[in-house]
């Protein structure tokens, strides 16, 4: 049955997170953006409330080969609702929530029970200090073209030796561990890809540059260096048995992560767009006597109407992709649809908000200016808008879905 309203339970999650966003995130957002520092008390609060890693939907993936043992029913839907709400508060802060982050899904999907235990234990046991996991796929020479990674892994007895550089890794420097993608043999393409759980004390692992960015400035973006980095074979995600026959498992690990996280990232762009829209709308209400029959009214009214409509459409696309995810209906087209549309709407809406409000240096103007900078990356990470269109066009050329 078609039912496009939130249940009371969903509504409660939304209200709870909205309250957190409003009272805990918004007040520190501008300062965190300016300094790049997220206060420790804030991080602790996210841990106390169990928000840690929540927005990125860690540990909600089904157990491999046991489809019936799902995360809680409707977890993807709750996650998109939550992502929008928290991003409405501040997107950079979400990425900084302690937890396994984007590293969570590959470990959950493909890790052995022992690996899951090792990776996730710290989040369970140390409630005093923030910890992070991270996901290290991108390299200076391979971003969109993820199959082209050149970080190498070489078997050496009971160990693997990793060599290469990873860049733009969210929380990569502060993370306890990174899921690092590498290749056994670049000529063999995806079949030779492997993912490793690389703990920060692994010999040969070091952190390079921390990036200075256009937006999401409170989120850490790091370069990682692997110089003869030695990890045990037990750190190969899924174990060696998983790779006995030549397969695309490694690459699939990377991609599976995306089908689940794209709608969440999309919902974050929706949250940013909504934040900018609401600030702009309230500003217009306060500053314009909109009943004046001046042409400017119509222009602004039209803009606001378009902004709200597009945000609404984007949100529904996120809901749809998440609903499909919950029902185990293949959703890579829909995930990409939600991601590309929401990122575009986010950019359009934040741009319009600035255009309408101008700049006077007040709190509201500074917020909108920040949101405008923050949202751009949503059309870049987790697959650029162009990459989403490649995914979508491939799907529709394989067979139309209606």
């Amino acid at each position, binding site marked *: *049955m*078609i*039912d*496009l*309203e*939130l*249940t009371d339970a*969903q509504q409660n999650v939304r209200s709870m997170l909205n309250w957190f966003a409003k009272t805990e995130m918004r007040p520190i957002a501008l300062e965190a953006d300016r300094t790049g520092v997220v206060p420790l008390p804030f991080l602790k609060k996210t841990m106390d409330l169990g928000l840690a890693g929540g927005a990125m939907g860690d540990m909600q993936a089904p157990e491999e080969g046991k489809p019936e043992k799902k995360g809680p029913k*409707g977890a993807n*839907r709750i996650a998109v609702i939550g992502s929008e709400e928290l991003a409405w508060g501040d997107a950079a802060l979400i990425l900084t929530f302690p937890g396994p982050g984007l590293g969570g899904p590959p470990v959950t999907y493909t890790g052995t029970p022992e690996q899951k235990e090792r990776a996730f234990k710290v989040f369970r046991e140390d409630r005093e200090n923030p910890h992070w996991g991270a996901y290290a796929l991108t390299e200076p020479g391979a971003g969109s073209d993820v199959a082209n990674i050149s970080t190498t892994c070489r078997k050496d007895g009971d160990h693997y030796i990793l060599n290469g550089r990873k860049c733009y890794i969210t929380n990569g420097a502060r993370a306890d561990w990174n899921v690092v993608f590498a290749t056994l043999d670049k000529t063999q393409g995806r079949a030779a890809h492997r993912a490793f759980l690389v703990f920060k004390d692994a010999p040969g692992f070091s952190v390079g540059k921390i990036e200075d960015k256009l937006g999401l400035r409170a989120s850490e973006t790091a370069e990682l260096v692997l110089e003869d980095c030695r990890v045990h074979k037990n750190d190969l995600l899924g174990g060696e048995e998983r790779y006995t026959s030549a397969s695309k498992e490694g690459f699939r690990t990377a991609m599976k992560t995306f089908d689940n996280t794209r709608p969440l990232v999309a919902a974050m762009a929706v949250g940013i767009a909504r934040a900018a829209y609401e600030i702009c*709308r309230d500003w217009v*209400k306060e500053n314009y006597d*909109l009943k004046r029959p001046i042409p400017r009214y*119509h222009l602004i*009214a*039209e803009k*606001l*109407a*378009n902004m*709200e*409509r*597009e945000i*609404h*459409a*984007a949100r*529904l*696309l996120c*809901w*749809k992709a*998440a*609903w*499909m995810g919950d*029902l185990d209906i293949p959703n890579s*087209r*829909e995930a990409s*649809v939600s991601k*590309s*549309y929401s990122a575009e709407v986010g950019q359009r809406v934040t741009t319009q908000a600035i255009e309408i409000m101008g700049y006077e240096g007040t709190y509201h103007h500074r917020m909108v200016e920040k949101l405008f900078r923050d949202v751009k990356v949503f059309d870049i990470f987790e697959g650029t808008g*162009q990459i*989403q*269109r*490649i995914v*979508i*066009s491939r799907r*529709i*050329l394989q067979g*139309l879905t*209606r």
Partner: protein
Amino acid sequence: MISFELDEDVLAVQETVRKFAESELREGMREAETAGGVSDAIVTRYRELGLSTLELPEQHGGLDLGMITKVIVEEELAFGDAGMAAAIDRGGLAAYALLELGTDAQKKQHLTEGQNGTVAFWEPGQRQSLGDPETTVTEDGGGFRINGKKCLVSNAGLVDWYVVFGTVDSSRGWEGVRALLVPKDAPGLTIGEPDEKVGLWALRTATLTLEDVHVPKENLLSGSASVREGAERLMNRVDLVNAARSVGLARAAYEYSVGYAQERQAFGSPIAHHQAVAFMLADMSILVDSARVMLWQAAFLVDKGENARKEVAQALVQANTVTSKITIDAVQVLGGAGFIRDYPVEKWMRDARALSLLSGTDEAQNLLIADAIMAA
């Protein structure tokens, strides 16, 4: 809850309509376009399939399937042909007017007996103007006398009666508005020549001129305590139908483009493999989805009995905006062939324009949305 799942019975209806739309509408669309109308036979067939009343309440001969089913059906019909979808729905608009504004007696008489009627929404030089008509109504000897002009009236000349909105006192806003049933043979009513429109030629539209048209007081649609609220519910339904047709039209252009791009070769491969084309196809896919999810949510809210005026208007603007872009891009995907009448996409580009004009311009809808935003 967030569920986009269609029930079994809806899926069954959808399957039936899809076949009908593909075999009868898509096949016959150029002929209907040239003829400027549809045959009675196809209207009968549409009714026999039970498609003309499925959203109506059971007591009025319907299946009570609600607007959700209706928008799914209309998407499919318009996927076949949007103009024909509007033309075969001869009594649909008027049925909504009766449902939302009529008395029980009026519903019983006109709905149950399956008579044909239509609603005259527009006046020359005005936006959709149910709440602010220039047409005047004067009380006169136990009845009403109507004077005015209505334009772009769907199925004009093909139906038994018209729903006409006029005002007894334009200074009183909605308070002064009356909705009246005007029989086709009322003295003083003239129906103009069919309009020559940019598209949707299969749907006959024309101007009605009302000169001292007299109707008895039983013809006043007085079933809704508030004319305004009844009219808004009427507009919700009509806008949903138009938005659904728009989505169907967009999907027609999108699917045709995908098929064509896979066949047509250039530089040694199908043009679909050239990224500039592939991305146009991807954008079409994104946009069709975006319009459909909004349409479904709006229909869902209307079925729940909510005043979803804003959501419906948003769904309509989204659908029209998206369809305009997709149909224009479809012509681009076909290149020169897109410009030629041997191919359907030039028609769809024209139909999209006509559909969006007939359903109320986006500017007007946007002002409605903005008013709702500002009032909140």
